[in-house]
């Protein structure tokens, strides 16, 4: 992959059930993620909204689905521009924005990912991840000790 190369676009259809499930299974009991009456009448939102753990989870999934299970996400930064409600088809658009080769086995990459609905950006994020450059599973970034791993995140 080269800098600025796009990743394949993937989609995820939001439903009342998966927005509620994402919030409940992250034990986020705030009613704006599960109670439509509360979200609309009290918070003046269009509907219940996806919580940030679920959005973060989907963005990380987008990266590991593409780079594989050995990809280790170290940093995620995201900005929620508009509330994400049920019955919307999210499209994940990613680009490689930088790469630092640490060794012949490990590369630290930075990706920009936009979450769009009907071509409008609803959330944008930046992810730093370590990817295995060899096919040897013994080189999995998950096997790097946390102090060494941290040092790669702050380079």
């Amino acid at each position, binding site marked *: 992959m080269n800098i600025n190369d796009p990743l394949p676009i993937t989609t995820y259809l939001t439903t009342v059930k998966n927005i509620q499930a994402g919030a409940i299974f*992250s*034990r986020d009991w705030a009613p704006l993620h599960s109670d439509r009456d509360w979200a609309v009448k009290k918070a003046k939102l269009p509907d219940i909204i996806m919580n940030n753990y679920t959005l973060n*989870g989907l963005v990380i999934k987008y990266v590991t689905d593409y780079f594989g299970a050995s990809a280790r996400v170290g940093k995620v930064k995201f900005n*929620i521009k508009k509330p994400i409600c049920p019955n919307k088809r999210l499209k994940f658009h990613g680009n490689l924005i930088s790469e630092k080769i640490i060794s012949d086995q490990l590369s630290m990459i930075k990706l920009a990912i936009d979450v769009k609905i009907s071509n409008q950006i609803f959330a944008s994020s930046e992810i730093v991840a370590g990817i295995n450059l060899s096919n040897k599973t013994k080189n999995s970034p998950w096997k790097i000790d946390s102090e060494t791993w*941290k040092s790669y995140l702050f380079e």
Partner: protein
Amino acid sequence: MQSNLPKEILKLIGMTYCTDLSPITVQKGLWQNFCSAIEDGNPLYWDITKTSKYSESLISHPALLPSWAHDFQWHPEREIIHPMQLHFHIKDVLNLPLGIVTDVEIEFYEPVKDGDEISSEQKLLTISDCVDTKLGNGRYWEIEVNYYNQTKQNVGKQNIHFLGYQK
């Protein structure tokens, strides 16, 4: 203006507000429910026989790191521990009943595993002047939360930017 902030809020800036001990133990069944909701089949979260190629154990979905400081909705024997107490304290003091998350930065250092006990420390970093937004009038603030496991290892850090507002 920041100068209009109550002293109670000003004195919080840069200080550790509270340390929350883990209300629950990290359990794979809990993180697998979440993975199911987002349809994430990464074997690291699901299948130890496939995971061993990459990691010595199953790991929790990284996005759930802050959630390990969240208690159950109800517990038979104890009072529920509420997460992000600092955020709710700021809302109360400033009389801003509504709040949303606008930006999040989260770093993952040590993988969280089955059986871990995660504690957290909250700190207010910044708070803005009064703002008028489409949602209402309020203020923005940033809270930093550091997460530690049972061996006091810093497993990650989250910086959350909130808008607290009233209609």
